[in-house]
């Protein structure tokens, strides 16, 4: 492998196009429920002359009047999209990893799109377990952060700290700490998935410690890079949306421009996702992690042991 496992991973290999297209398709499909908001708008705010004719951008008061009629429906639709994306990712991610790993090994699969789906279905179980463990880790981390900052806030209130410290700095630091927890858990989960698929393992409890060792051994590529890339892509999306809202569309073609912007965002997200997957595989493939790759899974074989115990008891 070349000396730049992470930065060079953006280059497509055999199967990359299929991976990115499938991810983009999943993003679009998962966002489709949100189009129900058009009906909500058409039935409500878009019929209120007070809003429609108000000067743009809408004042805060006008926004706050409008949003209660729209946000609950939007939130439900958006969250259902998040659920759809979660389910899609359970299949797409391991499938994409498998196809990209094959390309890394020099044995590209002939029909990458079909292979992504076929391979991905096989890994649903382990992917679900990884998701569960990640959720638990985030919950635990958030609880610890909450406890620590709660104690700090109490100390500060007793000591007479300023509002700047108590109401701005502390909450920002708390958010940052939470961000670190989510980043760590997310990076660990990402590398665990890489370990599972690259080594064709099934046991999450075996893959987790290996992933943790990789994160420790290559923090730049395994931890910092995916967090920064995810942050940059998400941040760009926020900037685009913020600019959009502050500069309401005017003139012909405005809607088309917005659609193009959305499409570009989706493409960027899919590209970033592909880059992260390839980077993860290439980091795990580094020679110094060879001893980890050859570690065997040690299944508990609970079912086999239970059946054996039952047979022994019957024999007695």
């Amino acid at each position, binding site marked *: 492998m070349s000396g730049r496992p992470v930065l060079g991973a953006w280059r497509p290999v055999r199967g990359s196009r299929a991976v990115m297209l499938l991810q983009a398709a999943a*993003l679009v499909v*998962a*966002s489709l*429920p*949100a*189009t129900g*908001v058009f009906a909500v*708008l*058409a*039935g409500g705010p*878009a*019929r*209120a*002359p*007070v809003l*429609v004719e108000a*000067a743009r*951008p809408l*004042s*805060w*008061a006008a926004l*706050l*009047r409008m949003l209660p009629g*729209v946000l609950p429906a*939007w939130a439900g639709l*958006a969250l259902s*999209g998040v*659920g*759809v*994306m*979660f389910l*899609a*990712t359970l299949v797409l*991610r391991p499938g994409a990893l498998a196809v990209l790993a094959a390309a890394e090994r020099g044995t590209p699969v002939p029909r990458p799109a079909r292979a992504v789906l076929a391979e991905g279905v096989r890994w649903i179980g382990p992917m679900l377990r990884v998701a569960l463990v*990640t959720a638990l880790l985030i919950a635990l981390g958030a609880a610890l952060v909450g406890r620590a900052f709660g104690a700090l806030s*109490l100390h500060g*209130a*007793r000591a*007479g700290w300023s*509002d*700047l*410290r108590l109401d*701005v700095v502390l909450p920002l630091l708390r958010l940052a700490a939470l961000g670190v927890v*989510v980043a760590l858990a997310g990076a660990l989960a990402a590398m665990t998935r890489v370990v599972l698929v690259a080594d064709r393992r099934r046991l999450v409890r075996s893959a987790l410690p290996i992933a943790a060792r990789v994160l420790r051994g290559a923090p730049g590529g395994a931890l910092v890079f995916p967090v920064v890339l995810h942050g940059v892509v998400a941040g760009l*999306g*926020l900037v*685009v*949306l913020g600019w*959009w809202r*502050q500069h*309401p*569309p005017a003139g012909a073609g*405005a*809607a088309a421009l*917005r*659609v193009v912007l*959305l499409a570009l*965002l*989706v493409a960027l997200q899919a590209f970033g*996702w592909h880059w992260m997957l390839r980077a993860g595989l290439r980091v795990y493939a580094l020679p110094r992690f060879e001893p980890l790759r050859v570690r065997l899974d040690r299944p508990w074989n609970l079912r086999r042991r239970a059946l054996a115990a039952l047979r022994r008891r019957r024999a007695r």
Partner: protein
Amino acid sequence: MTVRTLCVLVAAAAVLPAARAVELPAGDPPLRYEIRIALDPDARTFEGHERIVWHNRGDAPVDRVPLHVYLNAFAHRGTTFWRESPEAGFGRFAERRFFEVHDDPWGWNELRAVRRDRPDGPELAFAAIAPDDGNPLDRTLFEVRLDRPVPPGGTLALAIDFGGRLPVPWARTGCEHGFCLVAQWFPKVAVLEPPGTRGARHARWNAHQFHAATEFYADFADFDVTVDVPDGVLVAATGVERPADGAPEREGWTRRRWVQRWVHDFAFVAGRDLAERTVEHVPAGRSTPVLLRAVLPAALVHQAPRSLDAAAVSLDVLGEAIGPYPYDTLTVVAPPGFAGRTAGMEYPTFITGGTADPVLDWPPRREMPLFVEVTVMHEVAHQYFYGLLANDEREEGFLDEGFATYWEERIFERWAEEHPRATRLLGRRTGDGEMIELMLAFSGESLREPLLRRPTWLYEHRTHGAQIYARMAALLATAERRFGRPATDRVFAAYFRRHAFSHPGTADFLAAARAAGGEAMAALLAEEFAARRLPLYRVEEVDVRRFEVPRGRSGLEPEHLRDAAAPLAVERDGRVRVEVTDPGHVRGLEVAAGATRLVALAPVAGRVGPVAADATLWETQVRLSGPGRDHLPVTVELRFDDGVVLRQRWDGRALWRRLRTVRPARLVDVRIDPEQTIVLDPLPLDDGRRVEPDRRFVRDWGLFLVGAAEWLVAAVGGLL
């Protein structure tokens, strides 16, 4: 007088402001307080001696005198104040947090002795009373039993020794980390309302316990207050500073003295790390300056100009519209952040504005007026409504809070002319008045009691704030929009002229409205004071369909059928026919019957002409609902796609109305109150409806919200 002298006088008159009454009343107020207090800000303790001289302005002898001892509300959690705190909106979370942070926040004021005439005079009996709720644990109201009654016109002198500890600030008053905002700290005589005051037929004591949802009520008095504090402690207070008599009893202490005539309360601030800035300002309506003083933490004294500027513009606006500020000083305290619960409060000639804190130097907050200027504007407005027009805040709290909220918006409007950037947050407009309307929007439908309902502390669960602040302010704004600002300003000016330095009630304000604003304005105000719910107008249904000749056996020739079926579609005289169905209304046992009638309306925009025989006709039917008020008529506007706009006046008395018309044009939208005069309507979005949604609006917001959902899907959906 020579011509030259006359010219000089005329020139002088042109330059000098118009002469208006600025002086305090010539006579004596009902009370005089001479108080000495020694305050230790670090220990939060105080010892006090007061001499009260009270004049019986009633029509009967008085043998018992109620005394407010408000500070005892913070003695323990069984007081009426603490029991009512959740209902008053203090918040259980905030309360839990307060007790988490503070182990010993309690404060109290003990009456040590009450004597008649002199400090060594005969001792009088006194006991705590609880006339409002019978709470034996509440000691915020005492009754002193006199050894002999005070006849009408007579005078009573009391010498009271008291002492205690200030609480950690939970509501308005207290000490923390060496900063003390000392309010409601001295035993205060309740108000004896003479005959004629607030509808009293005979003199009556108006004495209530301290409730969580309400504030205070006291008589006008002359104050002479001496404060002893440790050296190095800065003190600022109500009124004007004068040389102190004598020296403090303790070594290493300083004695200061303040006097003020014709106010009904006295508060002061004391702290080690404080600084003050002063500026003289000549407000509108005066020719002499008012000394504006800002007191704030020494490290943040650079934030003083914000408070001082806001106070100056407030006095100008109020002075121009209502009447000149009659006192010579106004102190604005910006408490430190940890004492934020003392912020935003009014006392005569002394207010607490927004907190002073490093966060205000932080760029996003530096420009925002919400945290400093708006609070100062509100509290300065209270100098008039509460300070000079001293309404009973426990029984008619809306007469000061709602008025101050309305005037806060007016002052903000003026201030914003000089600070246009401050009216925008992230590029969007953020008007103060709009925020007040929003408060009504979020709680409007839960309000089901009249403003007039008494006492103020018994408004329904958590509606107190929306009632006395937002609803009252919105009512005044509605009156302004409907009758014009000059008319409403005349009402305020008349109210001020008639009742400054007294205790007006709702009836007094309505009388001023009738005299200066007219019967219609007074009727609107009176109706809204007594109305249970907010007035809600709404477009319930809009139906537009192609007109079809009715099927069935009509007995008419086909060529006449269309004309007979569409008598409304006659516009040859330049008017549009509209069928109006009004169901009538009932008031008591009087019934106004409903009817359907045909009215001919001349368009206010667009032109109509003869309808061609083969023209496609559209039948429009609109159903509206309203609050059924007698004094809140509205305009209903119909807009058609041929540019014709029709307006019809609806008296608003019935609970609904239906309009029907048949025209060679389709309805585009219907609007109730297109001029948006009814600020009281908490849901203005449903006052109008377009037949078809605005496609550009749907596209713009729809695509944006889909984009936002997609962002969420991408950022969160794949996280696990």
